[in-house]
């Protein structure tokens, strides 16, 4: 009985991992084509763009902020880099420029949030619309097809590892070290718990918030280039709703929307893998495409429910502890 309860508690604590395993298991039962190594590698490649995006989002969420503009930022990045490459600019110039555009988005967000003290939700809602419009203006609502050289990056391998996965790995490790191993990272958590307290403790809150939105913009740009290298074209709906996918991945991974709680490794990574595994699995079993968002929504609901259960049981434990 005691062991059973301990197992249940362990499963609740690692609900996302358990759910990921459950999803892998059920799809593999439904289709023999799902749980094969080539498809698993596929899931990894497909999820790399989303995971990178969600990593940036995690930084923002940890400060109790939110960035709704990343999808639009991705779109602008895609359009700008697409235009540049088509007009003959070499990739060596186009890529840094694209990254700069992403960070510029972050900087604009940070300016309004830090200097003008407008809440992140409103600021990034504005840049979400502005960015989408800007991208449509630049692209004249036409799809931009990218040259073969761009696509080659997407399918190339280094030491046998697909390029998108490699980029994800680098971003993942860097972000993890920044969050857990630097003063900046730990202060991000402090601000997320209570920014007033953080200010009182002498933490440079404004500088850190700027940094966080820059990181989010940069991750959006990197994530977008990775996606571009796989798709080869920028359509007018490119990056659309990706901000919600990124938020979902981070929240699935255990990051709190109230700030101060969560991590990238394993949290956000597992969250992104879970979302992608479900999408991939639904494709493999030939489910109706309109069903995808429904299933994703249900999974988010389930996780949020588990999260609230987890919160409640922690509170109950605390109350009985003080009562004893």
């Amino acid at each position, binding site marked *: 009985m005691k062991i059973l309860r301990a197992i249940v508690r362990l499963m609740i604590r690692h609900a996302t991992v358990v759910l990921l395993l459950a999803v892998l298991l059920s799809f593999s039962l439904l289709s023999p084509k799902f749980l094969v190594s080539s498809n698993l590698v596929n899931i990894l490649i497909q999820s790399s763009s989303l995971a990178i995006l969600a990593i940036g989002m995690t930084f923002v969420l940890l400060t109790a902020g939110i960035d709704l503009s990343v999808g639009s930022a991705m779109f602008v990045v895609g359009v700008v880099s697409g235009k540049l490459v088509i007009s003959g600019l070499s990739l060596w110039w186009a890529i840094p420029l694209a990254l700069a555009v992403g960070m510029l988005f972050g900087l604009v967000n940070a300016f309004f949030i830090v200097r003008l003290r407008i809440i992140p939700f409103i600021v990034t809602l504005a840049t979400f619309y502005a960015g989408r419009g800007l991208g449509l203006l630049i692209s004249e609502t036409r799809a931009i097809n990218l040259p073969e050289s761009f696509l080659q990056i997407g399918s190339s391998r280094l030491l046998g590892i697909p390029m998108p996965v490699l980029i994800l790995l680098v971003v993942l490790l860097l972000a993890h*070290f920044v969050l857990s*191993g*630097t*003063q900046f990272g*730990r*202060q991000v*958590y*402090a601000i*997320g*718990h*209570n920014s007033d*307290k*953080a200010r*009182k*403790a*002498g*933490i440079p809150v404004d500088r850190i918030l700027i940094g966080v939105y820059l990181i989010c913009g940069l991750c959006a740009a990197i994530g977008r280039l990775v996606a571009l290298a796989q798709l080869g074209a920028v359509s007018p709906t490119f990056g659309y709703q990706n901000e919600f996918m990124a938020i979902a991945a981070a929240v699935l991974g255990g990051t709190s929307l109230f700030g*101060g*709680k969560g991590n990238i490794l394993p949290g956000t990574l597992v969250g992104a893998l879970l979302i992608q595994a479900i999408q991939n699995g639904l494709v493999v079993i030939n489910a109706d495409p309109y069903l995808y968002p429904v299933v994703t929504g249900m999974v988010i609901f389930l996780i949020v429910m588990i999260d609230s259960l987890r919160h409640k049981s922690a509170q109950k434990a605390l*109350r*009985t502890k*003080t*009562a*004893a």
Partner: protein
Amino acid sequence: MLLKLQNIRKSFGKVEVLKGISLSLERGQILALIGENGAGKSTLMNLLGGVFTPSDGDMQLNGNAYLPDSPIAAQIKGIAFIHQELNLFPNLSIAENLFINQFPIKKLAGFSLIDRRTMRERAVELLRQVGLQIRPEVKVEELSPAQQQLVEIAKALSAHPQIIIFDEPTTSLSRHEANQLFELVFQLKAKGIAMIYISHNLDDVHLLADRIAVLRDGELVKLDVKEAVDIQGMVKAMVGREMSEFFPARKVLPDTKRLLLVENLTAKGFVTALDFHLNRQEVVGFYGLVGAGRSEMARILYGLDRFDTGNIYLNGRLIQKPNPADSIKNRMAFLTEDRREEGLLLGMDIQKNVQLAALSRFSRGIFRRIDRKRAGGQVSDTVQSAKTRYNSVTGQPVSTLSGGNQQKVVLAKWLLTAPELLILDEPTKGIDIGAKREIYGLINQLVEKGSSVLLISSELEELLGLCDRILVMSQGRITASFTKPMFDRNAILEAALHKQSETLPT
């Protein structure tokens, strides 16, 4: 002379909060600073801590002019301020909290990484100094309030302070934990650190202080060595009147009609087989240690928490499933222990807060439009009678009031609706003596108007002075009952402690 203040004045706008204070402090000395809320204690300490700058006067530290322009500047000069509300981040580890703004750093390939080993070593050393034997990797949220306080002190020590200011450090501590804190205070004193100790607990003040300074209305009304001031003298200096006036007799006696009857109330893990009743216009006190189940009982009665078995009757009617909305309809009112979080809308002004409880009585017509004029008039009346120190009933957010005044606003709220059953959970926690007295007066006023009160308090004096009956709880059970005037202080204390030690496991 370590610290010398001469003729310090501070005004906010036209209001002069400090009217020429002169104080001094030497190495290894403990100065207690007492006074009512609003007497100017916090303002004075905020001048020292670099939060405000004085309007006039001279501050010297080690013979040099001392004029910090920020808390960090004060910290660098060696003055640490331990606030009542701890400035810790519960989601981070102890070590991370200790070094939140100056992590030990090592360079790795151009990156500045946290040097976890050095951090751990230094954290262990700091924790040793405060006598906390917990791994520095443990998250602060897993610590008890007392342990968190020690972490805060360790954090202060990391800056090698000459002076530590404690603002009400014992409010969230048990007696035992407070005593451990005092031991630490004496250790720090022996090391030559000077301390300024602010507290409403005059017994503690008398135990700790070398000298006692009493502030009243921004003036230093008494400054003397401990031996020359007793507790009566402190109270008198603080409020300017005698202690016996504290519990004025009520003009009414409890009715024989029963208002509340609780039978065999059990909520597993919290309360067990509670049996008690409350008559009309009666005040029944609940005494017990923190965690004895008193607050849980109150939450159940009001409908905030569920119970497993038992019956609750109000006016002879069985209450099936208590919930807050029905409780309000049944004219119950619950003043929670944590008034800052639950009792008030801190961002709103006094009028809106007071009206909130009685909105329906001020609304007219089919759209239930609020009759602002009538509401406004009644509100000023009630707030006046609550003697709240305020600038304006409208436009001033409640968050800017002191704790005691906030509490009075909460009570004024209920004065307007005149509830039948009032449950008060630690109504005077962290409140100064003058405000306490006014709150006692308000409670009496409510009872005279017809309310019955369940009063939960950890201050025995308060219960002895206010209650018609006192019930003692221990480990979720009622262990003793006393009726006025047969209150026996020792028997009450024993009943609260007795069972605890008897059933203490291992």
